[in-house]
């Protein structure tokens, strides 16, 4: 049976005849014998049957709407204003390709220019690309970029040992290509970068990386100092940031960052089981940095009538022009995710961004206070979203008991950092409810 959306299934004979072929097989005459075969796949089904089948499969998922969750560790449940979804699902956005023809793609180009602009204001650097795959890929490419900026004469990239494990793993894979050496710095008793250890390891580094907040959810108080140490050693300073904090924390660009990376999808995009996301990539307005940056850039220009217009620009850095000499292989990026983030940020405005940061900060502090009633908090400091909690019992046991009570506990940290013992990260955002925390506390009291 012809599939419902393929129009010319109804005209095959007629079209073949018009162009002088007698059968579809003739169109595959150049394929060597034996290659064409019948696949062992199920028959197609009606849209309704697949709708039912997929719903049945999806029903086996239990979402954070059905079960209070304290999971964070790099992925957070934020509320997205309803209009964001409706706008990015407008099919002219949703079903368009990379804007190779600028004149017919002004909507997407301007929306991406606005994304770049909004992120620039948040991070405090004026040049932002149209997105990387995620924070991890942005950070990994930043590492490669700092090595290129040193023309390969420096190959060390210095990162805190307590960098998010997902990102660390992506960085390590990317580093294997050009042979970048990833050097880790210890954390101190406050769960922040050990400055003395950094000073020892920074020599000959191409770049130094730090996160706001760090993997333990803590603000690194010595960001500026770390930047100075990096710069004095001749290294570039790369800051990774959760942008939802930037209403209350100084822009990394103002704190000395040369490159800022981070996760844009925390705005405007649901968790989606971890993807799609969108990596932030921003640099200082320095031609040397701009020439070496990865990814697509949307620029403002004018059209033949002198009217303002938008276009993809500085493409000579990119793979479709420079091929093997490109700054990166990134081609498809996460444009729609970036546009959703832009719409959300624009909706919040300066006051909303600040308020969002404050509500998360306070909710985190509340969760932390309550957790301290029943467990040990290894680090003291200012937490944003994540809080590290150490238990005496094996955490997986506690986790199971919480699940039985329809509560999803935190993220088990021991597999990545065994030295931290039976610890887990519990997280709050603006979506966290008091009833959830109360239920968690009741459950923990029973379990511990």
């Amino acid at each position, binding site marked *: 049976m012809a599939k419902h959306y393929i129009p*010319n299934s109804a005209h095959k004979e007629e079209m073949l005849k018009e*162009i002088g072929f007698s059968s579809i097989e003739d169109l595959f005459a150049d394929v060597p014998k034996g290659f064409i*075969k019948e696949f062992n796949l199920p028959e197609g089904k009606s*849209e309704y049957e697949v709708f039912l089948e997929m719903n049945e*499969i999806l029903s086996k998922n239990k979402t954070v709407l059905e079960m209070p969750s304290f999971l964070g560790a790099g992925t957070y449940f934020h509320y997205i204003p309803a209009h964001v979804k409706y706008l990015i699902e407008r099919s002219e956005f949703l079903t368009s390709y990379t804007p190779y023809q600028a004149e017919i793609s002004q*909507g997407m180009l301007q929306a991406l220019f606005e994304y770049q602009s909004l992120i620039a204001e948040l991070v405090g650097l004026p040049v932002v690309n149209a997105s990387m795959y995620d924070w991890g890929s942005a950070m990994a490419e930043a590492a490669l970029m700092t090595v290129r900026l040193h023309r390969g004469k420096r190959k060390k990239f210095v990162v805190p040992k307590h960098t998010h494990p997902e990102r660390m793993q992506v960085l390590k894979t990317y580093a294997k290509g050009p042979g970048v050496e990833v050097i880790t710095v210890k954390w101190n008793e406050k769960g922040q970068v050990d400055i003395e250890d950094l000073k020892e390891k920074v020599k000959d580094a191409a770049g130094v990386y730090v996160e706001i907040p760090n993997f333990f959810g803590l603000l690194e108080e010595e960001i500026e100092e770390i930047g100075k140490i990096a710069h004095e050693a001749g290294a570039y300073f790369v800051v990774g940031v959760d942008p939802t904090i930037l209403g209350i924390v100084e822009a990394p660009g103002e704190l000395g960052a040369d490159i800022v990376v981070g996760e844009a999808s925390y705005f405007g995009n649901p968790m989606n089981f971890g993807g799609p996301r969108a990596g932030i990539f921003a640099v200082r307005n320095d031609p040397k940095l701009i020439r070496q940056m990865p990814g697509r850039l949307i620029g403002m220009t004018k059209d033949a009538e002198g009217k303002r217009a938008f276009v993809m620009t500085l493409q000579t850095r990119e793979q479709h022009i420079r091929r093997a000499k490109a700054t990166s292989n990134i081609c*498809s990026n996460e444009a729609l995710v970036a546009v959703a983030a832009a719409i959300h940020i624009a909706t919040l405005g300066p006051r909303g961004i600040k308020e969002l940061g404050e509500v998360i900060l306070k909710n985190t502090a509340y969760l932390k206070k309550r957790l301290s009633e029943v467990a040990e908090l290894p680090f003291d400091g200012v937490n944003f979203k994540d809080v590290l909690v150490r238990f005496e019992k094996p955490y997986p046991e506690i986790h199971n008991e919480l699940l039985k009570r329809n509560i999803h506990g935190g993220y088990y940290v021991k597999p990545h950092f065994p030295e931290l013992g039976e610890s887990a990260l519990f997280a709050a955002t603006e979506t966290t409810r008091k009833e959830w925390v109360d239920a968690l506390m009741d459950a923990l009291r029973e379990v511990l």
Partner: protein
Amino acid sequence: MFRQAKWDEPLIFELSHPGRVGYTLPKPIEDVDVKIPEKLRRKSPLNLPEVSEPEVVKHYTRLSEMNYGVDSGIYPLGSCTMKYNPKINEELATHPKVAFLHPYQDERTVQGALKIMWELEQWLKEITGMDRFTLQPAAGANGEFTGVMIIKAYHLDKGETQRTEMLVPDSAHGTNPASAAMAGFKVIEIPSNENGTVDLEALENAVSERTAGLMLTNPNTLGIFEDEILEIAKIVHKAGGLLYYDGANLNAVLGKIRPGDMGFDIVHLNLHKTFSTPHGGGGPGAGPVGVKDFLKDYLPVPLVSYDEENDRYYLDYNVPKSIGKVKELFGNFSVLVRALTYLKIMGRDGLKEVSEVAVLNANYLTQKLKGTRGYELPHKELRKHEVVFSAEPMRRDTGVKALDVAKRLLDFGMHAPTIYFPLIVHEALMIEPTETATKEELDAYVEALKKISEEAYTNPEVVKSAPHNTAVRRVDDVLAAKKPIITWKMYKELKEKGEVDY
């Protein structure tokens, strides 16, 4: 005649009015007093727009109206396949049971998500003839990087450290050499022969004990099937290299021919090309990578596995020689949901029908356009999913270039083909109608290209000054590169200095 919306829409920053808000936020649980350390507290102003919700909605609605998508009309970008995306995919991909899932949830609470990934892998395995897939890569190029890193790991594991060269045909996508270079390989370009396929002699001369692999797409970017593929595979394998399949052009052979049967060891697919996922203006996509059995231990972690005895899906981190991770977490999950939905509806016969009609449409267009003054059809006539014409005669005769042809097509309400690619064809026009174009659309496209040829030879100015009917007139990309304005922040500074008048 086509007329695109022209809204002269200001930037969102220019719509700002102090005091307007577009949001509501919940109050904090408790007004805990917590202070950001002085040296970290934000002191620099947050220059963000202050707009109300209806303004945001109208602004982005207007922008969308100045954008062209697959749902707007024909979009025959060669090698950047854009086909119709059934709306059911969207409905399921944005389902709350997808949206509200945290990736670190206990496996017992995400059995549906894991089943979707596992089922998708089974389909992709059969479609490609590969034995195991990772769904982690976020895009085709991310998949290519994954693939070449696997090739690298494989050779290093065998102690063959001298295999530092990656072979790439001169007709290849730019991402191939870029991905190989990122993985640390030296890129060796293999020329094409007069048929537009890999030159076997040049390949024989290029392979050596330094060869890590050959990256190939079949059919290639000219839309031509590499009919000597078994010979190519033999040459590469004999030299100890691996054969990598760039799946960007799988549309032509979907449901009929498997890369695995052609001798390929490793494959990446573009779910956003072949499996009907909308491309969102540049992403998200997804670029799963499949390998033959002997390479499965090198795949990124985690893989999705199924424990039949307990009927449970689980994330398997036990991949002994894994290259690590190429992206955080498990990939672009909602894109995977779209792909599986599509596959289930199409089924075995539907997929085959897709490639057959795509190939029919490409050849129909080829034959109808062939012989039109100004356009030349280089290489073989029989094409697969796409065809590359050269506008070189037109440029020579009239000064009208491929770029002008592309811009003029926009005036007809049709998206332009890919231009100036592959690099081996002068003034290239690469057209891929896909299976979703109707016969009437194909006829109209051919008519438009013929009309443009006529214009080029009688009134070339109308083509050179195109487009005329779009939201803006021809965009000055030289100025954009000469005076980069990447953000509002940069724009304001230049505007204050009086350096821009737009």
